[in-house]
């Protein structure tokens, strides 16, 4: 075995060199480790308590606050949405009722108008009928008068053609009488 390189490589602090086997039990290194451990712990404690932990705590608190606020806001919005839906339903029902009412009204109005127009038309028809009847009567009266005239003239002509000289009055009288009998 090459013992010279071994002793050259191993340092006095090396466990294998002093034969204890476990470097953990080399008490020469204890003060060093303990000193640097205390330094390290102090450094970590300083950094944590001064900077890191307050910062993370504030971030977490802020997040918690944000979440709580958001949930509250969402709750409120949900409430509003429900209210809006209710209002919408109400408006819909109102509109439906209004539409029904308008339809009824319109129907009634139209009925009224119709009745009015019908009555007017009937009245007009009645008036026209009355007028027509009057005119027919007039025409009939005129026709009767014409017939009388024609009958008188014809009677006179006939009498004259027969060579008689008849008086106008008598002829008229006779024709009138005959007309009255035939009527």
């Amino acid at each position, binding site marked *: 075995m090459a013992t010279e*390189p071994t002793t050259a490589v191993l340092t006095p*602090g090396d466990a294998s060199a002093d034969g204890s086997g476990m470097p953990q039990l*080399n008490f020469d290194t204890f003060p060093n480790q303990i000193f640097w451990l205390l330094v390290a712990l102090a450094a*970590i404690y300083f950094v944590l308590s001064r900077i890191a932990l307050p*910062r993370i705590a504030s971030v977490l608190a802020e997040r918690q606050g944000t979440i709580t606020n958001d949930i509250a806001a969402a709750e409120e919005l949900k409430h509003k949405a429900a209210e809006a839906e209710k209002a919408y339903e109400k408006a819909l029902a109102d509109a439906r009722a209004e539409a029904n009412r308008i339809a009824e009204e319109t129907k009634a109005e139209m009925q009224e108008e119709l009745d009015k127009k019908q009555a007017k038309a009937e009245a007009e028809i009645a008036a026209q009928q009355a007028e027509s009847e009057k005119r027919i009567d007039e025409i009939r009266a005129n026709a009767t008068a014409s017939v009388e005239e024609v009958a008188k003239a014809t009677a006179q002509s006939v009498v004259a053609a027969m060579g008689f000289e008849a008086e106008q009055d008598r002829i008229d009288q006779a024709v009138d009488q005959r007309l009255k009998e035939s009527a």
Partner: protein
Amino acid sequence: MATETEGGSGLNIHPMDQFVVQPLFSDGPVGMFTVTNATLWMAIAVVCTALLLVLGSRGRSVVPSRAQSVAELAYGFVHKMTEDVTGKDGLKYFPYIMTLFMFIVMANSLALLPMSFAPTSHIAVTAVLALFVFIGVTVLGFVKNGASFLGLFWVSSAPLALRPVLAVIELISYFVRPVSHSIRLAGNIMAGHAVLKVFAGFAGALGIFAFVPVLAITAIYALEVLVAFIQAYVFTILTCVYLKDALHPHH
């Protein structure tokens, strides 16, 4: 090591060499203020803690970035642990507990890098951490509760005849706390790293069958990642339990 190459008579592995504390800039003896590899890796742990928790959270954003998310996760993890175990009045000591947790978890994780040094594998380091907790908790217990802190050892729920016996047992277990607290951490880290080194030595000796120990190293490494976190967690939660005993000594 020269002896490794010369190891003709079989395996010549030095699993403990990785734990040797050496000066970084000189060959002299390790004095109290010498800058050693332990100093370096503790400093890296401090820097990584600061990077994660300070630089990571500098955005202060409501919707966090990745680094901020991890920082908040670490904060929330320890904060919740402290609150759950010690109660609301234990939150006053949260920065101390967070300091311990961040140091241990960072030192453990960084020690898993190849060629690195594990400060928490040294009993000197873990004993100081455990004594820190033990002395702090004991002093705090007496300051907060006065003599009634001794009620911790007087199990009032047990039959009267048994109480002196139980008091002795409780007292012993109380003083064993820092021992188990520190050796648990150092032992776990040291054992894991030593095992990795031993398997690495096998890989060097087995030639073509080196893939077997390499696969084993991969598996153990994964386990060590878990252990690195779990040991930090265990150390922290035991600190919380001891703190709870100091704040509320009555069972």
